[in-house]
């Protein structure tokens, strides 16, 4: 399998560990169901990044599933978290949204779906640690501007559009300052009462 996905290595690293480019995400250790949903979304053009849309255009569901399972099974080391450059206030605001949400503006806590340890939930919700700030804000922006969509109902589209620019910055700063667990620990399927329905996480 490693040889078959060498085409992904320049951007995602030979073991899916990511590269120095902050926009190129780590793949290793994410839930297989989540990765599979992303590969389908790229193939079918629902999530847009032309170099990847092009590479995956003529691959079957079966093969994409194998690729997803392969990267989900890898455990390369995480890079150490970058020391935060943002102020304490920004980090504190981020932490609040992640753990408690912002009930006044209808924002649910991220941990309600991504898990109390932010490790994600099987099968379709990814962990939020070990991602870099630029990537996190890029993805939240993608949902707001329609270049990233997930299966309907697309709960992340709703969550992302409730956040202000400052919220996005704060959440990205806080999440990227947290160390990632060496071994991912997903909450079991259906174990969290999610505040919104998500098409990628059917229950």
């Amino acid at each position, binding site marked *: 399998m490693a040889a078959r996905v060498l085409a992904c290595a320049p951007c995602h690293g030979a073991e899916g560990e990511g590269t120095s480019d902050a926009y190129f995400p780590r793949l290793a250790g994410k839930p297989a169901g989540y990765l599979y949903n992303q590969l389908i979304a790229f193939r079918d053009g629902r999530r847009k990044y*032309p*170099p990847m849309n092009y590479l995956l255009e003529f691959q079957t569901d079966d093969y994409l599933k194998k690729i997803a399972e392969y990267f989900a099974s890898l455990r390369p080391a995480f890079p150490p978290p970058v020391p935060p450059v943002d102020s304490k206030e920004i980090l504190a605001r981020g932490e609040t949204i992640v753990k408690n949400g912002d009930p006044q503006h209808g924002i649910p806590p991220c941990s309600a779906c991504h898990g109390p340890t932010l490790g994600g939930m099987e099968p379709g919700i990814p962990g939020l640690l070990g991602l870099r700030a630029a990537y996190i804000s890029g993805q939240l922006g993608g949902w707001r501007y329609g270049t990233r969509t997930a299966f309907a109902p697309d709960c992340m589209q709703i969550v992302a559009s409730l956040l202000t620019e400052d919220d996005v910055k704060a959440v990205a700063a806080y999440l990227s300052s947290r160390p990632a667990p060496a071994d991912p620990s997903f909450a079991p399927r259906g174990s969290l009462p999610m505040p919104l329905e998500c098409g990628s996480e059917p229950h």
Partner: protein
Amino acid sequence: MSRTLTGLLVGLMLALSPIGASAQQKAADPAVLAKGEYLARAGDCIACHTAREGKTFAGGLPMKTPFGTLYTSNITPDPQTGIGTWTSDQFYQMMHNGRFPDGGLVYPAMPFASYTKVTREDSDAIYAYLRTVPPVRQLNKPHDLTFPFNNRSLILGWRTLFFREGEFKPDPTKSAEWNRGNYLVEGLGHCGMCHTPINALGGSKQSQAFEGGLIPMQNWYAPSLTSNKETGLGDWTIEEIVDYLRKGVSAKGAVYGPMAEVVYNSLQFLNDDDARAMAVYLKGLAQGGPPEKASTSLPSAESSLLLSFGKSIYDRDCASCHGATGQGMPPDYPPLAGNQSIQMVSAVNPIRMVLNGGYPPGTSGNPMPHGMPPFAQKLSDDEVAAVVTYIRTAWGNRGEPVSARQANELRAATLN
């Protein structure tokens, strides 16, 4: 008849005649339906008439042309928005003569210029099959063409120049296999739509801009299938051509770009006999002497510098898959030595492969293909030009050098 076989047939019938299919539908012969489905695959109707994540055959796929965007039609049997009220005569008239039931002219992006070769019997089988697919209520999107191309009467000019109506006539001096191949390639396969310089919409002046098979808007070059200089199929065995068409990979090369779509949606479903027939016909087309020698246009001192620069990049970035002497590791990694598809006068294809990488399509014969990484970020224009020049001229290859400018221009090519 055994129980499992009966069960299978019933299952097939159910799959083919969904609830709600038009009431006027006669109980069509399952053999005819199966044949119609097969022929629709061979004609690749699904690729154009299904939008991404859209309903099968409901149309709506945008087709970008230099003159604007065309949207394909709904060809499901829905009576209001599809072709549910069409008779088999009207359907044949569309396939054979490119006219709507009211006599209106069809844009040649619908490949009737090739489908005109399709026999009445085959057209009727496709018609019968299309009546059994699930009807979808979805209005056709109006085309978005610039003036004057939004005027359908312009199609008349195109037709006078390029359209020859007429069913396929077998050549009695050739084998049945060759004739079958000819019928499929020139007819349903509509291979000429990409593999000839005539472009589907222009016709006169505009078409000259794309001479030599550069596919408009996509920036891929489809080699002429009649010239051994371009395709080199004359040197391939029948098995290699069959593998190429059906698996998407072969000992001589892999499909990429728009050809990957054709294999993925259409050619992989050909049966053994038809794939072989196509190969026999294609090989016959390409015969006519060994590929010509191209003369290199760079002064030798300059070219040897470029070549040694190119070789160093090749050894570092390419040799692990394509081999130190370009021999590849087929079928996983195609050979580059002797690979005709990278030596054509147009260097568009090898430059784009280096910039964008690629995966051959996932097919039943090659379900988990190996891929090639894109080098657009890693290599500068000069490096791309050097390595492409190297693979086009090393190991006895006879292509011409390429410039950094050519490489730079293709960085902006649409990816998908």
